């Protein structure tokens, strides 16, 4: 149970210059040649045949995974990147960002995945107790440039792309410009942005966001409690609740799509009925509410004593909370929680939400009849096993399970 490697270092980079400027590369399968290659395209060389075809086609940039076949066969490409074996899952259409000098790289986009999520910055004005991506106070503005370069290379048939941080709105002018690029290059793609929403307390930011003019754009904003100091404590920032709620109101006032995200842990789970009643009464016009199991990684590990709670212990509250929202007409989903920990009546709300690259199951799940529809577990961090994990017999498989199928 190890997640896919999305960050790492190339074994060798040659011919790409040694300056500070980063390179964005889109991989192409060597196939049978006859390419129309963009300057960003790099052809994947797996064997001698690939290398021969690519050479004959005049390919400029070649990528080798695990083994530098070209070197051993004496082919020469003007630009060459050689990656370690744990990147061998990369394929045609995938995109990486690479610093030729340090050889550091990160995977920006995987065409085969429905969970592409692009980090916009590591900076944040929150410091959440359970942050899975602990913020760093560094100057990483180059990331936005890299994404701007990456967006036109993404397959326009991609169904959805996520942007995450850090807090993307800290650089809201540049970020909303990025969203406008995405709207042009990926007109059919759902764009989901994870933000703490505080920036939207400013009308200027909301205006810029709305000016992107995309109906595919949705802001996913966390609210951890109906009570100011509890939310502020979870995110470790005073006045966060006030600004976030105000931000949501301003976004909805401009008809922008908003999802509220509630991560369930030791502080939020005991209040989930109160929180969802409050959402149902005060924000019933949001487009979606996601009630999410905790990813036990990052700060969540450091704060385990405070945050870990066995989902079994909030099971009936979660059922009640889902009922309150759905009967108020609010679209609600349960993320990141295995089916065996949920009451049967909320199975239709459960979503296989964990990104493919970090999704896993337990050995005992092998005998479970609903494994194919179960969210399973995070392979990141350290897993805490619930007392309630229990493979389900075949008769528990309902004809229709997913809310999406209704």
């Amino acid at each position: 149970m190890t997640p896919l490697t999305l960050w790492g270092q190339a074994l060798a980079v040659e011919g790409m210059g040694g300056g500070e400027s980063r390179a964005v590369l889109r991989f192409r399968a060597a196939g049978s040649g006859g390419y129309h290659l963009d300057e960003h395209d790099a052809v994947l060389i797996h064997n001698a045949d690939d290398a021969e075809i690519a050479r004959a086609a005049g390919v400029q940039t070649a990528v080798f995974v695990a083994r530098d076949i070209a070197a051993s066969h004496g082919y020469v490409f003007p630009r060459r990147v050689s990656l370690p074996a744990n990147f061998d899952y990369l394929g045609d259409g995938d995109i990486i960002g690479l610093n030729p000098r340090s050889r550091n790289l990160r995977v920006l986009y995987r065409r085969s995945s429905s969970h592409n999520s692009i980090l916009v910055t590591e900076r944040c004005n929150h410091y959440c107790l359970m942050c899975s991506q602990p913020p760093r106070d560094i100057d990483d503005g180059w990331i936005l440039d890299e994404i701007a370069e990456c967006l036109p290379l993404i397959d326009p048939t991609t169904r959805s792309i996520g942007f995450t941080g850090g807090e993307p709105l800290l650089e809201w002018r540049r970020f909303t410009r990025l969203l406008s690029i995405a709207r042009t290059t990926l007109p059919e793609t759902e764009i989901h942005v994870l933000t703490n929403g505080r920036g939207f307390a400013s009308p200027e930011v909301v205006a810029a966001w709305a000016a992107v003019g995309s109906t595919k754009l949705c802001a996913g904003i966390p609210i951890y409690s109906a009570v100011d100091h509890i939310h502020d404590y979870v995110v470790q920032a005073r006045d966060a609740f006030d600004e976030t709620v105000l931000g949501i109101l301003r976004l909805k006032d401009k008809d922008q799509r908003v999802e509220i995200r509630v991560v369930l842990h030791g502080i939020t789970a005991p209040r989930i009925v109160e929180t969802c009643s409050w959402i149902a009464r005060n924000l019933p016009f949001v487009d979606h509410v996601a009630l999410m199991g905790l990813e036990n990684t990052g700060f969540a590990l450091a704060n385990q004593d405070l945050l870990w709670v066995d989902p079994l212990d909030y099971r009936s509250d979660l059922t009640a909370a889902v009922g309150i929202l759905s009967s108020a007409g609010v679209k609600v989903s349960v993320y990141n929680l295995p089916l065996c920990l949920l009451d049967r009546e909320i199975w239709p709300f459960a979503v296989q939400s964990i990104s493919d690259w970090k999704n896993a199951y337990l050995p005992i799940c092998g005998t479970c009849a609903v494994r194919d529809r179960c969210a399973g577990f995070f392979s990141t961090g350290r897993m805490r096993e619930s007392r309630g994990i229990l493979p389900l017999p075949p008769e528990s498989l309902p004809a229709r399970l997913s809310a999406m199928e209704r």
Partner: protein
Amino acid sequence: MARFLPEVAFSHSSADDLQLLPLRFERLGADRYFLANMVGDGLLLSSDELNRVISLELAAGDGLYERAFSKLLVSRKGQRSQLQLLALRLRSRMAFLREATALHLFVVTLRCEHSCPYCQVSRRSADRERYDMSEETAMRALDVALSAPPQAIKIEFQGGEPLLNFELIRAIVEEAERRRGSLGKAIQFVITTNLALLTDDVLVFCRDHSIQISTSLDGPADLHNRNRPRPGGNSHALAVAGIHRVREALGKDSLGALMTTTEASLDRVEDIVDEYVRLGLDGVFLRPLSPYGFAIKTKQFAKYDANRWLRFYERGLRYIIDLNKRGIHFPEFYSALLLKRMLTDRPMGYVDLRSPAGIGLGALVYNYDGKVFASDEGRMLAEMGDRTFELGDLATDTYRSLIMSDKLVGLVSGSMTQCAPQCSTCAYEPHCGADPVYHHATQADSLGIKPLSGFCTRQKGIMRLLFELLEGSPEDAAVLRRWAA
């Protein structure tokens, strides 16, 4: 690893940091209070808790702060979101004001073949010439109705027994349909009838024009026939037969029935409900008698007071909730209406329960004689010689002159609960409404002294009951929430 701040670092430091938001409360018992926020949802509290909220003796983590904050009863000074939420919710609740006068009642005749002693419209039994609406009057009424601003309007045919003048209904519907296209209006038609005179012709016409039927059913045969005498004593049989025929011809959703509570009904709420269930009706509206027409003359109205009616209502409501718990979806419609207000902020412009009042602004009534009234009850009063709610005459008036008349403006602005004594400090006010006609009829004052008002007694009684049921029993609450959905 950076340090995390403890919980206390995020709470207010003293009562000075806090402020109360607009609130009202109602004493429910020796040590029980309902504390409501500006839009009428809130908390049940002990008197100690109430005092602590009001004096802001609240500490983060004491549970009371959290309850009061999440119910928008307090906020920290300088916070904007709490006020914005209240403003938004209030705006949503009052949005019905944007749709002026969606309901138009045509009293096509005052004649009726029934002779109900509780008749609130003072029906006549003869003299077609005098008590039927003329076609000329009807067309002028249609002009006014179609010049009201809403895109979707409802035209309801009333009586008397409107089927006695069915030819006029036909003419009005056809003319309205001719004109609605160019006006871009959607028009829904309803006929309120006792069904005794229902014919196949009528049914075919209703089917072809998607006309809905509203009828009267007071309960099982003996009770219904006693309340609603007609020659032959067969009102119930005709109503039941009519209900079946209407449903067959027009579909189940095109029929609704209303009941009226007489003294004889008071001990029989279960029978009444059972009769509605037996006939497959989709719910029941437990309605008290109103102080108009023959109900006053024959002293029917005076036979029970608001408290007796409330006992009847509560017994009925509990009985109906039990039915629902056994899996029958069968709402009591008045509760459903109040629950929508109590549990959601959807705009509810129900003409009889809103403030500013629905007189004129929610509905206009075109009487058979060409007079225009601000409400159905207003024309009932006029038959008794009191023309307070007569706004004008179709011979001379337009929609605008009727709605902007000093008379209407005075009646509406003078009866608003938002600023009325008692109401303005009442915890239930956001869900209640102004009833200027009732208060004028009973107290000769359209605002009314609420502690003396039967309307107020009933309102408080029902809303309190609903709050207690919502708080007291999860199973009852689940049923009530379904009604509001």
